[in-house]
């Protein structure tokens, strides 16, 4: 201690002529993000234009208001497979034709299903907007779902999933969702299971497209270097004659079963060849429309990020992991809260204990202002940087539109985060993040940590990886008779 003080003193003497401490920040400069405008076409399609003219780029995105949550249980993955097949053949264009046309425009075309939505978007230089939107409308409205393309993509999905099923982290993610949601909305892998992928047939895909891809269940968001009038007129030109079906839109799937499930399961997937153990704590989080949304994301930021508590405790203080983190994914229905880290097999139980301890600690006492300020700054910085690109801007506006929130919320995000006080953290954590109501999943070589884990939690379910069945909440394959 004495030596340290001496060094500091010496430093001050040596650098007497220059400023030795960082100058403080000036007052924050105000920022206004573009205000989106909207119209609804006669067929029910909601069209939103968000203008920003500093770079000659435009992104147009069709948001279908359903995604993986409408996968029938036995057909997990069908919504994402459908989304990926859109650009593989239409009534007027072949797969290579679409790729070549997009490349000629210098553009990109992406489509995938998420939870609660399916997003199909094109990005191009602004003078190519009309040509790009012609392709966008074609792939959304007129895909043919050719059998050979289905088979090719099915095999790709199976290959990718097979690779994922070798990684403890992905296995834990799949098991965690099944434990929390069971047969409910978000319980299956978005890209399907090995069993469900084999069951999906062309009629299942056609049905998803017929039921959900319709103008009164979609939003078109156009952002970037385009004026609103021009955006609306392009929307009418390419989507105005998209017929609204006479049959009714299917009702949203029933409220999540996660509500009524008892929790507190401790599940070990035993994978003796695992190089590391993935440790995963999962519980119910919040829905996007929850009035506590901003309290929630700030609370989560106290745990997450490089300087967050989980990384502090698990990586920096104890060197038990390369990185630990958490996420609070707010969805249309209640999304999951997850805290997770990968560690050497021997520390599996210890890390589980630390995850639980840190989630519990949130509810016990308020963080100091000194701790909370940088965590809020990290959220605001990440938000502001995401709005630097047209894709980011369209993404943020799309998410607000999807959940029926005010589109001008992009101009209130910073203020909403700033308003959260230290005392909000235990308030939120105490009511919505009770650590005792969470489930714990560890995927790894159980020999190395099981005894300690059983001492800690008593009732531990151990399932050998070979017996794992991701299609049932029991997680176990039925014994062959």
């Amino acid at each position, binding site marked *: 201690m004495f030596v340290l003080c001496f060094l500091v003193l010496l430093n001050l003497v040596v650098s007497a002529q220059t400023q030795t401490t960082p100058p403080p920040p000036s007052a924050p400069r105000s920022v206004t993000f573009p205000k989106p405008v909207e119209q609804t076409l006669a067929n029910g399609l909601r069209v939103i234009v968000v203008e920003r003219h500093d770079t000659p780029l435009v992104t147009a995105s069709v948001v279908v208001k359903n995604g993986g949550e409408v996968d029938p249980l036995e057909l997990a993955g069908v919504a994402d497979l459908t989304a990926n097949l859109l650009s593989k053949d239409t009534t007027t264009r072949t797969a290579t034709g679409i790729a070549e046309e997009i490349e*000629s425009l210098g553009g990109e075309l992406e489509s995938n299903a998420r939870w609660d939505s399916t997003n199909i978007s094109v990005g191009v230089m602004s003078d190519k907007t009309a040509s790009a939107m012609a392709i966008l409308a074609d792939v959304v409205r007129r895909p043919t779902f050719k059998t050979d393309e289905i088979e090719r993509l099915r095999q790709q999905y199976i290959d990718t999933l097979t690779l994922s099923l070798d990684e403890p982290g992905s296995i834990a993610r799949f098991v965690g969702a099944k434990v929390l949601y069971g047969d409910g909305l978000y319980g299956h892998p978005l890209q399907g299971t090995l069993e469900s992928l084999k069951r999906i047939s062309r009629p299942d895909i056609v049905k998803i497209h017929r039921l959900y891809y319709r103008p009164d269940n979609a939003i078109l968001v156009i952002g970037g270097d385009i004026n609103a009038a021009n955006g609306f007129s392009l929307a009418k030109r390419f989507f105005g004659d998209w017929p609204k079906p006479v049959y009714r839109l299917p009702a949203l799937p029933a409220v999540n079963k996660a509500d009524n499930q008892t929790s507190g399961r401790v599940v070990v997937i035993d994978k003796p060849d695992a190089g590391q153990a993935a440790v995963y704590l999962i519980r119910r989080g919040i829905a996007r429309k929850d009035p506590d949304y901003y309290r929630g994301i700030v609370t989560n930021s106290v745990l997450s990020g490089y300087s967050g508590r989980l990384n502090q405790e698990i990586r920096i203080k104890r060197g038990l992991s390369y990185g630990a983190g958490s996420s609070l994914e707010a969805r249309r229905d209640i999304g999951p809260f997850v805290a997770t880290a990968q560690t050497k097999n021997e520390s599996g139980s210890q890390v589980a204990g630390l995850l639980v301890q840190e989630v519990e600690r949130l509810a016990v006492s308020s963080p100091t202002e000194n701790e909370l300020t940088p965590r809020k700054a990290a*959220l605001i*910085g990440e938000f502001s940087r995401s709005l630097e*690109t047209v894709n980011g801007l369209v993404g943020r506006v799309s998410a607000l539109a999807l959940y029926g929130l005010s589109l001008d919320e992009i101009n209130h995000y910073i203020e909403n985060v700033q308003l959260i006080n230290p005392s909000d953290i235990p308030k939120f954590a105490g009511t919505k993040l009770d650590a005792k109501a969470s489930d714990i999943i560890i995927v790894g070589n159980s020999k190395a940590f099981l005894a300690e884990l059983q001492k800690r939690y008593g009732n531990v379910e151990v399932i050998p990886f070979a017996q794992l069945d991701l299609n049932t909440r029991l997680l176990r394959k039925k014994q062959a008779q």
Partner: protein
Amino acid sequence: MFKSTKNMQSEMMDRLTEDVGGFNNASTADDVTIYYEVVPSNYLETLIWAEADRLAGLNVDDANFKSERDVVKEEFRQSVLTPPYGRFEFLLQQKSFLEHPYKRPTIGNIEDLDAASLHDVQEFHSTYYRPDNVTLVVVGDFDAKQLDVWVDKYFGPVAKPDRPLPRVQVTEPPRKSEVRFTEYGINDLPAVGLTFLTPGVADPDTDALDVAAAILGAGESSRLYHALVYDQQLAAEVSAIAESREDASLFVVTAVLSEGKKPEDIERSLLTEIKKLQDKPVLQSELDKAKNQLITNQLRERETNEGKAQALGEAAVLLKDPQRANTDLARLRSVTAADVQRVMQKYFNSSNRLVLYYLPESSKSGGVK
């Protein structure tokens, strides 16, 4: 450089950026070293102070020198030794330059890293980290006059050393005849690489070479992908890149073979596609496609303040004129089909060609893979 400086404790740069919602990083390329921070605009003065402090002096002791050296060794293992084609790319650059220091890729190698000492690092810092060898680029929401005041205040006192700034004097000699190498690695499938020596980035041919690279290699409708991957099914992957450097550049064409194919066949097909571009001008539609791809990419890279700063820095340092960033798009747009044909004829002849076969170790011992 992420360690302490005269007035900053260890990792203070991280606190000054991450804790206010930003980030910082650094990278070393063949011609430049880049340090950058992204922060909310009201922290600009703080960061100008911090960068000036870091330029004025670096505190490095033997312990953090050794731990950083270990980090770079890990980076070498992770980026060169572990990926199946990491060493292939490393070798392509190393063998492509005979004289110029570009023959030593920036990551170095384990032996050189082991040979480096704390003294070498201090020497490097005092030789090259000096105000007359640094360009400061600031992009974003700030008042330019205010910035000038801060720059004078914090960078002004940083002393300019008396001793001359050493510059690379070596010029890479023109290639006289084709050179060929065969190397072995951890890859399962063989790869073939060709390089052609081209002029430094300031040369007027750079834009036409960029367009040629896009025509050959950008996307699934590019010439190489269409011929080698789609039609002939000889290759699993192909690429064509015009790698720009200050003193001399490389045009690099690579292909990873499909199962059971011969490198000789791939090489022949690559050369056939190159010859087509020499024999006949490209169609207008193909030229437009390549330019659209390049221009859109450039616009995307420059959407963020970080990307704009990168573009301005390159223009200022490598092209000696920051205004060049504003004429990049116009220069790309003005490239004609005749320009592309001309540069293909000028640089893509056999005497300017290097050929590298990168074969699986297992094929050396006569094993069949």
